[in-house]
């Protein structure tokens, strides 16, 4: 089933042409990895999907992006972001306790405190493989956690909202290899329940976790295909050059 249908998407920030006529689809319960050098438009593309680009000044978009068949620009933006969660490049805990970080989303959507909230927080922390490490210190500041734990906390916080899609924007760029492996494990498990879009600068990570992989260059979608195909026999020479580290 098609989750996102993107048609002729074109994005400019003032004079900067960030994304050029991109058309593609994102399927239910897949991990789509998006690779490409810096300034290739992959993060801008990702932030289109939950309309975070709307916050940027001079943002102009043409073409269309539909979520479950509905034009995202006609959707209620809060509803869209509730259904399409995002994990940012740097671990960004809110200045609250560990518990309150995870409970933040559900609370904002009107879930009252009590047993249901508790179990929602616990479930989210378990799915993010963080529960065992924090269950005895839920009311400490989230800033006391290590970088890797903070990033898993951010994943838990996104999961607690019970979205349908989770967008990852280079979630492991600040993490050591062991923390990275834990985050990747979490993503592979999450695939059963969610659709994941992962933007990454780490080509090997894309190969490890992706079902399909999209390659962006200078704002254009060069190629999108099964991850195996991209890494063994891509159609475009530029894709081949990039994954072999010949440029970018």
């Amino acid at each position, binding site marked *: 089933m098609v989750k996102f249908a993107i048609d002729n998407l074109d994005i400019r920030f003032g004079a900067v042409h960030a994304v050029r006529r991109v058309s593609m689809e994102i399927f239910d319960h897949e991990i789509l990895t998006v690779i490409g050098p810096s300034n290739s438009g992959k993060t801008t593309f990702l932030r289109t999907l939950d309309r975070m680009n709307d916050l940027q000044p001079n943002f102009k978009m043409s073409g269309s992006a539909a979520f479950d068949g509905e034009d995202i620009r006609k959707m209620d933006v*809060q509803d869209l972001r509730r259904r399409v969660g*995002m994990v940012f490049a740097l671990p960004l805990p809110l200045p609250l306790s560990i518990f309150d970080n995870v409970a933040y989303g559900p609370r904002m*959507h009107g879930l009252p405190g009590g047993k249901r909230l508790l179990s929602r927080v616990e479930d989210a922390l378990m799915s993010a493989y963080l529960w065992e490490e924090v269950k005895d210190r839920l009311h400490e500041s989230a*800033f006391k956690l290590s970088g890797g734990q903070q990033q898993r906390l951010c994943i838990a916080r996104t999961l607690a909202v019970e979205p349908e899609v989770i967008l990852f924007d280079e979630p492991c760029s600040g993490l050591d290899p062991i923390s990275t492996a834990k985050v990747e494990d979490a993503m592979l498990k999450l695939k059963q329940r969610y659709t994941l879009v992962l933007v990454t600068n780490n080509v090997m990570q894309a190969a490890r976790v992706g079902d399909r992989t999209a390659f962006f260059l200078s704002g254009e979608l060069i190629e999108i295909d099964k991850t195996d195909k991209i890494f063994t026999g891509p159609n475009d020479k530029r894709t081949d050059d990039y994954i072999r580290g010949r440029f970018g």
Partner: protein
Amino acid sequence: MTMNPYRTQRIAFFFLFLANAVILLLVGLIVAVIVQKGLPGVTWEFLSDIPRQGMRAGGIFPAIIGTLYLVAGAILFALPIGLLAAVYLSEYAKDNALTRLIKLAIVNLAGVPSVVYGLFGLALFVVFFKFGASILSGSLTLGIMILPLIITASREALESVPQSFREVSLSLGASKWQTIWHIVLPNAIPGILTGTILGIGRAAGETAPILFTVAAFYLPLLPGSIFDQVMALPYHLYVISTQVPNVDERIRYGTAFVLLALVLIMNLIAIVVRYRFRMKKKW
């Protein structure tokens, strides 16, 4: 000659130290003079009695109460309005030429001489709204005077909350108002209180804005309502220092000491509140 970096640093350090020493010396001198000349006059009777014998004896109780009312009234008026204006300017207003002009105008309003606010208050509150010379007129005038301070400090406090916190909150599907209420405002409170502290000090100390709008020359009574006139410490100090001959130095400096102590106490309260919020801050 080549510069010796070590010596350059020593010279720079010396001047930095000197600047601080000059400030400390001046502040210390002011406090020392007022404490030395004023403290002997500050007795329980001085604090709790009404002025007697044409203000040459008795106490300053009505002026203390008057100043407390005026400061409380000014904060009550200026803090909510200033905060809401700051939230609008920093969170909602589009960043365009008009917004920047408004921000610039507000910053500049903080520098308008206080006597101008006094005249404005006289024209608007005393005459036009017919509040007369009253606590209401005086509080509103002082409130308008400290509005720019509070708006500017609050705006800076709001803008210093990292943009990433807002993005995270919005990305979780929270509304803009929820983001402001649950994330931005709690983290801006220390900065907002700093603005409030500055406002308290200014509202308590200014003479010109209350001169035409509320302050009574001699009124040895406590106010019955916000439509009454009151005495106020800065104006009382001016009166007994320049308008009434032969007032004992102990009374004059005693009044100055009480005014200073009052501002200090009010600031201390705000500082303690701010400290508690800073402790709660988790980043």
